């Protein structure tokens, strides 16, 4: 399991990455992240929605009410052009961090 501090840092990247595949409502978004990370990352309701609202304020994502095929009204989030732009540097930052950690671990193990 990944600790809370790291989870917080990766949450934005996780949400943006999942929304890159298409619009999702909050519940489905949390399910997708949990499934795709095999349970390593999971969002409770209390963690997910403040994060989504903050990202919406930054205009990385946009939420809109839509009616689903089964007639339910849901707020779906989709990536904005700013969100797409943000995703690339975020990915690069995390890749850099992971490769730095890998290098560090090799040095430590040597």
């Amino acid at each position, binding site marked *: 399991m990944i600790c809370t501090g790291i989870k917080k840092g990766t949450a934005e990247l996780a949400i943006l990455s999942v929304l890159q595949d*298409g*619009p*999702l*409502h*909050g*519940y*489905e978004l949390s*399910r997708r992240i949990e499934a795709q990370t095999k349970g390593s990352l999971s969002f*409770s*309701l*209390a963690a*997910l*929605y*403040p*994060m989504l*609202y*903050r990202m919406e*304020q930054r205009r990385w994502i946009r*939420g*809109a*009410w*839509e*009616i*689903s*095929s*089964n007639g*339910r*009204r*849901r*707020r*779906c989030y989709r990536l904005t052009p700013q969100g797409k732009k943000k995703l690339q540097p975020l990915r690069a930052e995390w890749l850099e961090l992971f490769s730095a950690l890998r290098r560090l671990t090799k040095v430590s193990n040597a």
Partner: protein
Amino acid sequence: MHDWRQLVSARLSDLMLDDDDAVQVFDELADHLEETYQSLLGEGFSEQAATRRALGGVGDWQALRRKIESSRKRESIMPKRVAQFWLPAFVTLLLSMACLALIQIFGPNRWIAPVTHGWRSVAPTVLVYIPWLSTLPFIGALGAYISNRAGGRTRAVFSATIFPILPYMVFFIIGLPIAIILDDHVARNVTVPMFFIGLCAWVIFPAAALLAGGWAVQHFRSRHSTAGRIATN
């Protein structure tokens, strides 16, 4: 069957957001709780256990309230109001004024409503700009589009759409009666039929024209969003 909407609004009753925002948050969280609950029932949990686990995702409601407020309130109230109401309202107002001015200068002759008093015509009469009325559905549609695109709810969309008639409505409801009381010259020239023709030409018909355009856009956009791709379970 739980009323999650009622539960959420009761637990977050002191959420310090403007009404529209708070309603959206309540609906969204209630929807999430319902989906979690149904999913847990599907996994074989009892109703009691499913309820407990669904609510476990919230933890401390007051902490959630504070988080939501800090994530939404700081930047949201004014810009949202501006985007959903004030901006489209002033766009429709300016466009309708500009169209009226252009039609008055370059357009075809206005229609003058013949108001009679007994056997003779009475002056001044009511001016009706039919070409201007015909532009209003498009202006109303634009206002509705801007408001709807910014996430405006129905009330905000239609309020912004009919905003241009506000000055005329104020004139007919407040300005003209005051003028009649204060100025004998005005009082002599205003007749009841003229007043109602004027009210129709400058308030009721323009409002109907603006709302027709606004309604068409609202209807189209709601259908469009329904047809959009939605991820479901």
